[in-house]
């Protein structure tokens, strides 16, 4: 086993409680995290940018507020890392792409405003697959993020940097984005908790768009309670996002001890067979047994249409991406490569600025939307999306939550998967949730025979976060100890 860099950070709940009570200073908490960054970030490469000075100023400001008798908020003094596709005012935001290298956004994403307002201390911008397109963070223009549990392995993706930052103890919590599994899969591979909330629960304002009907921002944490705490802080209606659900943030933390007695849990048959590693299947069965032992009723349930999820996703997501990424044209921001005419300048800028995976998806999406193919590909995929929603609806008539693997395997070797289609198969368990707009989360539950973490996925219907977190809390309580 190669050198690992897994950290042992304190939880956000404990940090915030101690800072609010004046028992610990936010500055001390931050320095402990910066010390871990100093020690192992060079090996892990979770960050595109560590904002040391701004973080020290933010921590000092939190301490001053406590000293003045004010309450800085529910995340008081909690170090947080932000995926580098979230706009941060005055702080470079790159999407791990050369086309945005050096770009300084003039505004904060809504989620960034909200974590600041809750008293959190942002420590930096985390690495990702370029424009969030990938499952290993190997597509970053700025280098791969290594898995803190084993540095020869990938951290997963696309939010690999945010998952690794929490796993390595660089920050107590972090934010990522999930279009087809980009929070849950890296959480599973790095052995942390990752949540993709209901579509529309968290504002996407200031999240640089990949596939607008699928993208959703969500939390990473070392515990289910910390993930709930962070989701409460970022959720709730935002007039700046027209797809924001007009409801306040749900109360989650207060339900974590409710237990799962009587909860109806369905194991998704279609995600328990071909293509899933036997170790992963065994941990999901263990997790189901643990929920049953805690009082839940557990049965298998078929959700047939999700077997078409991967195909539908890889038509819909690239189609939306090809449209969203048209804005990177060298005119208003980002890279410009000079050429004779404006059209030639656009071609030269995009060709130099985008990496191969981004180009591949733009090409795929442009093709799927082009004359003569629209109905066969994009239109057909949108109809399959309806079938998936219907089959999920039928399952949720009989079950409160569903259970499945998060990722087909544990973390794989850096460089092991070169073929794009093979890489896409990593998302087979996570994609159906995005197509339906539902919430789902990954909870670490034991390890494979390779000693690496396995993630178990809990899925719930739209706005079913309370039941999902109850099941997650029960799984966490029953999980085999992380560091065996």
């Amino acid at each position, binding site marked *: 086993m190669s050198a690992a860099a897994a950290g042992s950070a304190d939880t956000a709940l404990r940090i915030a409680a101690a800072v609010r009570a004046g028992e610990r200073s936010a500055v001390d908490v931050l320095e402990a995290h910066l010390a871990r960054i100093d020690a192992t970030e060079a090996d892990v490469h979770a960050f595109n940018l560590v904002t040391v000075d701004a973080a020290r100023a933010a921590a000092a400001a939190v301490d001053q507020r406590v000293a003045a008798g004010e309450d800085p908020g529910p995340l008081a003094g909690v170090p947080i890392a932000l995926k580098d596709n979230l706009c941060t005012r005055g702080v470079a935001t790159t999407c791990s792409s050369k086309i945005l290298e050096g*770009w300084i956004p*003039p505004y904060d994403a809504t989620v960034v405003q909200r974590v600041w307002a809750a008293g959190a201390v942002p420590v930096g911008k985390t690495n990702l697959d370029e424009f969030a397109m990938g499952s290993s963070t190997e597509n970053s223009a700025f280098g791969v993020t290594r898995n803190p549990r084993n540095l020869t392995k990938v951290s997963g993706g696309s939010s690999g940097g945010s998952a690794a930052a929490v796993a390595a103890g660089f920050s107590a919590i972090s934010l990522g984005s999930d279009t087809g599994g980009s929070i849950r899969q890296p959480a599973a591979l790095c052995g942390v908790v990752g949540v993709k909330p*209901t*579509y*529309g629960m968290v504002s996407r304002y200031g999240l640089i768009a990949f596939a607008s*009907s699928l993208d959703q921002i969500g939390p990473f944490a070392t515990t289910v309670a910390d993930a709930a705490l962070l989701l409460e802080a970022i959720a709730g209606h935002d*007039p700046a996002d*027209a*797809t924001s*659900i007009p409801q306040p943030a749900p109360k989650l933390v207060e339900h974590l001890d409710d237990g799962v007695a009587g909860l109806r849990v369905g194991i998704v048959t279609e995600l328990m067979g071909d293509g899933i590693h036997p170790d992963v299947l065994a941990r999901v069965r263990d997790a189901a047994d643990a929920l049953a032992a805690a009082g839940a009723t557990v049965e298998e349930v078929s959700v047939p249409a999700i077997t*078409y999820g*991967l*195909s*539908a996703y*890889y038509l819909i997501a690239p189609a939306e991406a*090809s449209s969203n990424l048209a804005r990177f044209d*060298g*005119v*208003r*921001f980002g890279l*410009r490569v000079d*050429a*004779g*005419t*404006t*059209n030639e*300048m*656009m*071609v*030269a800028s*995009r*060709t130099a600025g*985008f990496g*191969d995976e981004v*180009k*591949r998806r*733009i*090409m*795929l999406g*442009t*093709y799927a939307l*082009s004359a003569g*193919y629209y109905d066969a*590909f994009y*239109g*057909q*995929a*949108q*109809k*399959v*999306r*309806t*079938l998936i*929603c219907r089959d999920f609806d039928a399952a949720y008539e009989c079950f409160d939550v569903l259970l499945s693997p998060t990722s087909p395997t544990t973390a794989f070797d850096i460089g092991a998967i070169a*073929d*794009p*289609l093979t890489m*896409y198969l990593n998302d087979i368990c996570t994609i159906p949730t995005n197509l339906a*707009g539902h919430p789902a989360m990954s909870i670490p539950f034991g390890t494979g025979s390779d000693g690496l973490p396995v993630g178990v996925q809990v899925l719930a219907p*739209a706005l079913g976060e309370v039941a999902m977190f109850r099941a997650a809390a029960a799984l966490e309580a029953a999980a085999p100890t992380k560091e065996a």
Partner: protein
Amino acid sequence: MSARITRDDVIHVATLARLALDDERIETFTGQLAAILEHAQDVEALDLADVPPTSHPYPLVNVLRPDVATATLSNEQALAAAPQAESGRFRVPTILGEAP
């Protein structure tokens, strides 16, 4: 079932997407896109004539706000990241073939 994507299709799509691909990439992408689209044939083959499409997962319609002007980026802020700006506007190279 649609025909397999060809090298000429890839060149055409690259032009539409404002990307210049060298010969090696055209070759690689043609094979890779063909493999991905082949995988999607399970979806292509379904009879879904009676199924309505889902374009969006949450049924929100006509999201409006009051027609009141609010604070937004200043001209200076909007131009701050522009590769080239002049007289308060984004500057681009000539749009037509020859400079005037």
